[in-house]
C-alpha cells in the first residue's frame, strides 16, 4: 500500500510517499533525512500534541487551557478528549501544574498552559 504525506518539517512541503514492501518501507519524494523520518512516523504511528480547555471553578476565568506534555497517538485523540473533558480544577492553578496524569494510559500528562488566579 502506498500513501502520500505532506511534509511539515520545513516550508518546502515535500510530498513524500511511503510504500510498505517486503524488504521494509520505501520512502520517496523527501528532500532530506528529516523528511524521511517524518513520513515514516506519520505512516506507522502518527502523534499530535493535544490542546483544549477544562472547567475551572472559583477562578478569574471559567476555562483553563491545557496541553499534553508530549504528543499523543493520533488514534487515541477521541478517547483522551473524553477523559480530559471530565476534569474540573479549582483555582488557583499554576502554569505547568498537572491537571490529569497518564491520560488514558498513554503515559502522557495533561498540563495547565497558564496560571489562573482565584476570583477576587
Amino acid at each position, binding site marked *: 500500500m502506498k500513501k502520500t504525506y505532506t511534509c511539515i518539517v520545513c*516550508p518546502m512541503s515535500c510530498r513524500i510517499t511511503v510504500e510498505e514492501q517486503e524488504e521494509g518501507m520505501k520512502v520517496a519524494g523527501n528532500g532530506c533525512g528529516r523528511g524521511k523520518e517524518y513520513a515514516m512516523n506519520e505512516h506507522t504511528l502518527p502523534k499530535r500534541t493535544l490542546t483544549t480547555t477544562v472547567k475551572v471553578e472559583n477562578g478569574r476565568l471559567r*476555562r483553563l487551557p491545557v496541553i499534553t506534555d508530549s504528543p499523543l497517538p493520533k488514534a487515541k485523540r477521541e478517547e483522551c478528549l473524553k477523559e480530559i473533558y471530565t476534569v474540573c480544577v479549582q483555582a488557583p492553578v499554576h502554569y505547568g501544574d498537572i491537571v490529569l496524569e497518564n491520560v488514558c494510559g498513554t503515559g502522557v500528562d495533561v498540563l495547565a498552559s*497558564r496560571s489562573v488566579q482565584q476570583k477576587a
Partner: protein
Amino acid sequence: MKELTIDVAVIGGGPAGMAAALEAERLGVKVALLERNFELGGILQQCIHDGFGLQRFGVSMAGSSYAQKFINEIEKAEMQVFLDTMVLEITEEKTIYACSSQEGMIRLQCGAIILAMGCRERTAGQILLYGHRPQGVMTAGSVQRYINMEGYLPGKKAVILGSGDIGLIMARRMVLEGIEVKGVYEVMSSPGGLTRNIVQCLEDFEIPLYLSHTVTRIRGKHHLEGVTVMKLDGERKPIPGTEKEIDCDLLVLAVGLIPENELSVQAGVEMDERTRGPLLDEDYMTSIPGIFAAGNVSLVFDLVDYVSQSGEIAAQGAVKYLQGKIDSNPEYEKVQYEGNVQFVVPQRIRKGEKEKEVVFFLRVKHPARRAELICTEKEQILVKKKLPTAAPPEMLSCQVKISPGQSPKVQIPETGNSEE
C-alpha cells in the same frame, strides 16, 4: 487627575508590549505598561494551541504559555503595570491620557512611548458579504474567545471563510468541541496558512479546503441558516452556475488582520499604506521622534517570536532616544525594494549615523521556489540568502550591516519558478 512622569510608556500588554517593557527596564529606565484588559497577555491568552516560541525558546508551546513566561517575569520586575486601563489620547508632546475605573483619569508625561496595540480582525462589513445580516456570522477571534475563554459554543455547524492560520486553527478547535466543520473556503488560489496547519488542522480531521471559492450570500433572518458558496475565476469574480448551498449556523470569518492604529493616527504618526502601520525606521521609531511602534501594530507578523523581537528593538530605540543618541530631527534614507517583495520594514533608515545592524522583515507577493533574497547597496551585495521556498503567509527576515551613507535595496528577483 492622577499625574505621572515616566521614561518609557508602553501601550498594550500583549507579546510586543511585554517584551518591550521588559527590555526597556533591563536597560535601566523607568517603565509603565498600560493594558486595557484585566490581565496581561493580549490575544495570546485565547491562543491555547501550540506552535509558539520555537524560534525564541526552541520549544513549541501554547500561546497562553508563551504569554505566561513574560507575565511571570513582569511580576518580578519593578515597572508600573496599569491593568483595566484604556489609553484615550496620545499627544505629539508624548503625553498620554488614559482611564481606568480604579484610578480615574491618568495623565502620563513620557520621555518615550512604545505603541503596541496589536491588530484587529477584518469584519463581515469590510469584506462585503451579501445577503441577510443574522446572528451567526463571527470573526475567528470572537469564536476563539467565546470557546476558549468564556466556555460557550456559538454554533453547531460551521463554515470557515479564509484559510489563514487563524481559520485553520479554529477549524480544528471547533471539531474538538463537537462542532461540525463543513469546509474552509479560500478566495485565493493558494492557502493562506502554513502547511503544518493544513495537515494538522484540516487533513487530520478530513475537513475539505476549497481554494478560489467564496461565500456569496448569507441566508437567515434571525439566525444564520446557511450560505451560498461559489467558485471564483482568475479575476476573483464568482463563476455563474457554481452556486452551492450549505446549511450552517455559524460562519467563521478568518479574512485578515489590520493593525490597530487609531491612537497612532490621532497622535499624528505618518502611516504606510502597504503595512497599514506607521512608517518606521531601523529602531522602529515613527515619524514622531520618541514615539516607537512594536509588534502587530507596525505590521502583521506571522510568528509571535518576531513580535517579541520587534518589541525589544523598539525598546532599545526608545532608550537610545532618551539618552539623546537619536537625532530629534532626523533625515532618512528610504529602503528600496524590488522583485517579488510586498513590503519591507523598516521602511527607512536614519542617515549619517555610525555602522549598524538592521533587521529587515518582508513578505513576498506570490509563492516562489529556489529564489534568493539579496540586499544590495549600489552594485555591492551586502547579504545574500537562499530561499528554497517562499510564500506570502510567511514573513522573511534578514540582518544587514549598514554603514553610514549607504542606501540599501532589498530584492527577490523573479525566478520564473513561482507556483501557480
